[in-house]
């Protein structure tokens, strides 16, 4: 073993072991309880309000594609879209989904159609409710702003990978008086969402929301495994800090062994 990496190596074994174990356990049917995510709970209220007011619900799954590290955010967005459109179909509200990546369009259409089908409301499904607007980041943002303002959206739900356009879209929703629920794993954009939106999903909450909305066992299992890994980090922290306060650096030294 190289010097200075022993502790890292065993920690990696613990982290990887926990994650793999819980994924396998979830695949074999064990379910885990997950804490509520306020933004996810608020979706029903937002859809209900849109129904009462007779105005539309706007949804965007972000501007990321299906490749690369940010794809996970798009998938989480689409998973929550399934839940949103089921509620829309159940209440008889209207939804509009804005798409930036052409490759995401067919997936989003399918998600919405399936949701209407599951609610037995396929005749109410409007084919034009999912639309590709533009591939260019700011042209997309401008188009979304236009739609939100024209239609006076009652709810604005933004869940996925967002970049610099986040505050433009959130500003438009705020000005239209919409209930805004937003979330992204791109931490740099979360501040703008917090300042302009009613409910915000912070970072990994987005993935958890996607896993809850879809009930995907692999993702739920992975979350449980990650939690055990966080617990491991917390335990190290507590022991190390108590030791350091008592004047002992044993863990501090052990960690670079």
């Amino acid at each position, binding site marked *: 073993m*190289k010097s200075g990496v022993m502790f890292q190596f065993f920690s990696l074994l613990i982290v*990887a072991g926990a994650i793999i174990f819980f994924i396998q356990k979830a695949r074999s049917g064990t379910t885990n309880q997950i804490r509520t995510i306020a933004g996810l709970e608020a979706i029903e209220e937002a859809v209900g309000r849109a129904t009462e007011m007779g105005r539309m619900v706007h949804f965007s799954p972000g501007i990321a594609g299906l490749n690369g590290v940010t794809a996970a955010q798009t998938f989480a967005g689409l998973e929550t879209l399934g839940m949103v459109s089921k509620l829309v179909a159940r209440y008889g509200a209207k939804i509009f989904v804005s798409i930036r990546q052409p490759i995401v369009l067919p997936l989003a259409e399918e998600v919405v159609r399936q949701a209407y089908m599951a609610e037995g409301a396929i005749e109410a499904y409007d084919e034009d409710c999912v639309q590709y607007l533009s591939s260019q980041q700011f042209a997309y943002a401008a188009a979304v702003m236009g739609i939100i303002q024209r239609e006076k959206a009652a709810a604005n739900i933004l869940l996925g990978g967002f970049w610099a356009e986040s505050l433009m879209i959130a500003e438009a929703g705020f000005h239209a008086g919409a209930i805004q629920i937003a979330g992204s794993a791109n931490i740099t954009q979360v501040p703008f969402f917090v*300042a302009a939106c009613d409910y915000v999903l912070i970072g990994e909450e987005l993935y958890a929301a996607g896993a809850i909305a879809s009930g995907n066992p692999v993702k739920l299992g992975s979350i449980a495994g990650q939690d055990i890994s966080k617990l491991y980090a917390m335990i190290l922290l507590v022991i190390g800090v108590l030791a350091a306060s008592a004047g002992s650096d044993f863990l501090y030294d052990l960690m670079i062994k």
Partner: protein
Amino acid sequence: MKSQGLMIALTFLFAIIIILDAFFAVDFISAASTEIQNWGTIIASIALALAAVNLIRVHSRRIMLRRGEWYNSVALLLIMFVQTAIGLFDTSTGDIYNFGFNNIMTPLGATMYALLAFWIASAAYRAFTARSIDSAILLVAATVVMLGNAPIGESIWSAFPGMKTWIMDVPNMAAQRGIMIGGGIGAIALGLRILMGIERGHLGGGGEE
């Protein structure tokens, strides 16, 4: 050879070589790890041309069908071909290539995101409100940091830079570290799901923050 199993095995093999090399000093693994990393940079070099090929397909179709603003597509392809040709013959160190880079690409790229100064000001005016404890804390901290960053803050009250430094180095550091540890564990979990063959079709990405 269409088998997904083979591809997952390949992914697994490459990843495991790099991981083993990080922890164990074995000569042939180290050599293999160096070699495949250099292979990775070769494949990534070729991948840089993918966007151009994609643009040629999309825009040549638009031009042929005279669809939408097809003349913009002509402009796009024209400048792409000309600049590529200059770059290939003159290399990126050449004066003609740098003329295009310095006078077209750089100002346009810089302006694209400069517009954010406008958007952020307008959002500040119209949408950023302290309507919950969360957003109130955020806006107060943000204001202090802004006054700590801008020289005028110091002129107003000399304590602002110190307050800013404290916010950055204490509460901000703690929160960002918590996020970083959680995110790191999430990244490892994603990696494991890829290696287990559960998560498919990922390719590293990146961009401007």
